[in-house]
């Protein structure tokens, strides 16, 4: 019988080997494939099993993780969800993450290299890593002022601290509720997401930094800057400002918004041309300076550069090779000139910052779970767009816009506000967008703001009517806090 028993043990040994081979195939050979299979919740659960760090505005956690009693241990909660949606983004089971939730994922989930020391501890202890905290540069008061100002409208506001490039406000309207996209209920998430996707007003679009629009007359700041830095013009230079400007090579003509000439005898100073937003004068200036000069100037302000703040902003563009009529149109922010609200805020901020363009940023610092500071963003110069004297001259011209020109709605008692209105057509039959850009106090600005309101009226005054009051509120919110 012993022989039979030995034979049987050999058979059982073979069966055990078969089991081991099969286990090895599952756990080693095919493991990677299985991990990525639909229905495998483990990667997700590992992510949701970890306490994700908060996103802070000042000391206020606008996004934080709260413990649940469910399989998914932590739930992402957003206080003031719609207010901060363009900054935080969402953190969804189904649609992944957007906003800072996406770009700062490795900080928030504690996997970034700066946590290496913590990770070694975690490896030993087996504890789940806890994520770091991301503190934004957002000024809560400015953000709220901008959000309230845009209520009921479609548009975006970006506010920047001119000296540093810190983004103080980034607001979109309409907005969405990231709580509903970050819940643990797939059906609710899908339903809400589909509703947002179907909305013609595109609430998921990060308007402040992604939406590209013709900047209209606010672009005259760039043309004026190019004129001043060319050395050929100063604010008192008299330039032609007739009722109409014949577009060269075409049978079309360009008119002023009020269909009048800009000054007596069709002549106007550069200062006045900006104050009343004279189209013909700036169209003439455009061809006088040439497209290349304007583009160079625009690029010093940040055009044609993709910024990651660290959210990826759309690249604002000045047309590559415009002919003369196109240059004339581009000089007044029409034709193919496209800019984000962020870009126009940067132009404005640079003028206020003695002509120095700063790299915009949204993250002030990164803290470890124990709140020690791991990283602080230092302000970085992007370019010197204007000499200080030219910037000062342009600032005075912009103050004149608010005090005597088209931007009177931005006036603040006892504060010198520098601003510029704009209205642009997005297409032949498409609705117009109204702009207002401003900074204050003019002598030492603490805030530069760009307001974009879509579907505005056709009049140049719409920038003043719709945009200026919002800009004013944002400026006041910042100045009152200091």
């Amino acid at each position, binding site marked *: 019988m*012993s022989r039979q028993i030995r034979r049987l*043990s050999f058979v059982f040994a073979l069966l*055990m080997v078969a089991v081991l081979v099969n*286990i090895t195939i599952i*756990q080693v050979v095919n493991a990677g494939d*299985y*991990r990525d299979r639909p*229905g495998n919740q*483990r990667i997700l659960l590992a992510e949701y099993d970890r306490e994700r760090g908060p996103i802070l505005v000042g000391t206020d956690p606008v996004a934080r993780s709260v413990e649940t009693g469910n399989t998914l241990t932590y739930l992402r909660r957003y206080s003031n969800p719609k207010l901060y949606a363009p900054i935080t983004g969402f953190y969804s089971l189904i649609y992944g993450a957007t906003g800072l939730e996406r770009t700062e994922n490795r900080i928030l989930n504690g996997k970034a290299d700066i946590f290496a020391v913590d990770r070694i501890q975690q490896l030993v202890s087996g504890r789940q890593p806890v994520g770091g905290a991301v503190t934004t540069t957002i000024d809560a008061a400015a953000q709220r002022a901008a959000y309230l100002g845009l209520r009921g409208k479609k548009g975006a506001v970006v506010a920047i601290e001119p000296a540093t490039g810190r983004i103080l406000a980034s607001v979109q309207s309409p907005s969405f509720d990231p709580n509903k996209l970050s819940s643990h209920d797939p059906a609710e998430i899908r339903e809400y997401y589909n509703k947002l996707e179907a909305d013609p007003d595109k609430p998921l679009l990060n308007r402040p930094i992604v939406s590209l629009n013709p900047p209209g007359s606010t672009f005259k700041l760039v043309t004026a800057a190019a004129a001043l830095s060319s050395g050929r013009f100063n604010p008192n230079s008299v330039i032609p400002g007739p009722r109409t400007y014949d577009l060269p090579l075409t049978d079309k003509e360009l008119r002023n918004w009020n269909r009048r000439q800009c000054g007596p005898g069709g002549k106007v100073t550069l200062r006045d041309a900006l104050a009343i937003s004279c189209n013909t004068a700036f169209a003439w200036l455009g061809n006088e300076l040439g497209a290349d000069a304007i583009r160079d100037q625009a690029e010093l302000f940040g055009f044609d550069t993709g910024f990651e703040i660290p959210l990826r902003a759309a690249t604002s563009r000045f047309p590559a090779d415009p002919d003369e009529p196109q240059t004339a149109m581009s000089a007044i922010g029409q034709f193919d000139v496209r800019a984000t609200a962020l870009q126009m805020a940067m132009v404005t901020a640079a003028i206020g910052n003695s002509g120095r363009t700063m790299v915009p940023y949204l993250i002030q610092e990164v803290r470890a779970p124990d709140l020690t500071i791991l990283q602080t963003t230092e302000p970085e110069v992007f370019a010197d767009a204007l000499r200080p004297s030219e910037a000062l001259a342009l600032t005075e011209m912009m103050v004149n816009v608010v005090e005597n020109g088209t931007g009177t709605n931005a006036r603040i008692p006892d504060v010198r506000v520098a601003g510029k209105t704009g209205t642009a057509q997005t297409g032949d039959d498409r609705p117009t967008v109204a702009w207002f850009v401003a900074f204050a106090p003019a002598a030492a600005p603490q805030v530069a703001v760009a307001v974009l309101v879509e579907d505005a009226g056709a009049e140049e005054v719409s920038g003043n009517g719709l945009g200026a009051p919002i800009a004013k509120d944002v400026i006041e919110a910042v100045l009152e806090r200091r």
Partner: protein
Amino acid sequence: MSLQGTIEAPVRKKPTRRWVELLLLVMAWGIGLLGTMQIGWVSGEGMTPRLWITAGVVGGLALAMHITIRIVAKYADPIMLPVATLLTMLGLLMIYRIDVASARRATLSDSPMPTPDVYSQLTWFSVATILFIAVLVLLQDHRRLARYTYTLGLAGLVLLVLPLVPGIGTTVNGATLWIRVGDLSFQPAEAAKILLTIFFAGYLVAKRDSLAVVRTKFIGIELPRLKDLGPLVIAWLVSLAVLVFERDLGTSLLFFGLFVAMLYIATQRRSWIILGGLLFMVGAVLAYYNFAHVRSRVTVWLDPWAYADTGGYQIVQSIFGLANGGVLGAGLGQGFPNLVPFAKTDFIVAALGEEIGVTGLFALVLLYAILIERGLRTAVAARDSFGQLLAAGLSIVLAIQVFVIIGGVTGLIPLTGLTTPFLSYGGSSLVANWVIVAILLRISDRARRPAPVAPSPDDAMTQVVRAV
């Protein structure tokens, strides 16, 4: 037995290897303790009193078994007790780990705290220890069991069909394999597997000579006489009945496989394996075409991914868990074993595999292999045919269980509901497997005990039977 006195006086001194057993036992206990401590640490629960109490109780029980062996079976195999103890501790560890996960969920969701199953399992381990000691103390000679061959066989059959009796049988997850008396419920099949192994051993020892007679040769295969086919056919029919009426695929497979293997050992005729295999195939085909639950097991096995949300859910989740474990495992307390259905019972190997990785599972399968190998070695070493057959049969019971359940949860073979010996949560299985170890230790003690051993009346009787 009165013969004990003569055995106490050895002719030559043989090492008992009890110190080896104690050393291995301490090592096993240390591994279990370290694992439990890691879970306590990782879960943030810390080194709670209940952790030390549990470790203390397990250590105490194992020590009690060790001391019993020293007194009543001192020549017994020194490896089996530590290995079975380590396996039991790994099971307790994993049950504790899943308890911790469930408790955490309950705290977070403010729902009532679930009763920790680890205490219940620990209680069952105490019962197992008592029975282990009782078997070794009361059963001084395993050959006494041969006297009750038919009584035990009948008892085994009754236990097997007991769940079918209305009023006491309970259907759990589609299989009727539980009986419930008041608050107590147990799986009679677990006890039946021991009783029937004893019966097979006793019966085959008595009948093997006639069963080994070759009647005809058919294309080179020696076939038994037609009238000797009876027992095999009966075993086959009983297995089919278990499958059909209790829907217990695993138990059905276990009994038929066990009987065929023991028949082969007893008769030394390969023809029985061939015949058994043919009957198995006929049964499998019949079951496949006539019973939906068998068919669904097979279709799910062939492509679990196609049924990932329905019938294949368990196996797919099991594979996900194993894949997450990888080579070294997620680490104790760091996987998601609660995602796998029945993680404490049928799928405990998958839950373990996620946290200890392929490395840990190799070690685990090796532990089983060592235990089975020691059992089969005991069978080879046994001095009497009944002991040989019984030891081999009990080892085969363990081997079939291990292969069928680990193969099942890893998708190597269709999934059948069998418990994982020593690991699975559940009292009947734990107690039954410890009784198997006790009997194997008794046989190995008798086998290694220094000669001369006075022949017992049973042996004499066996000799007579063989001579017939």
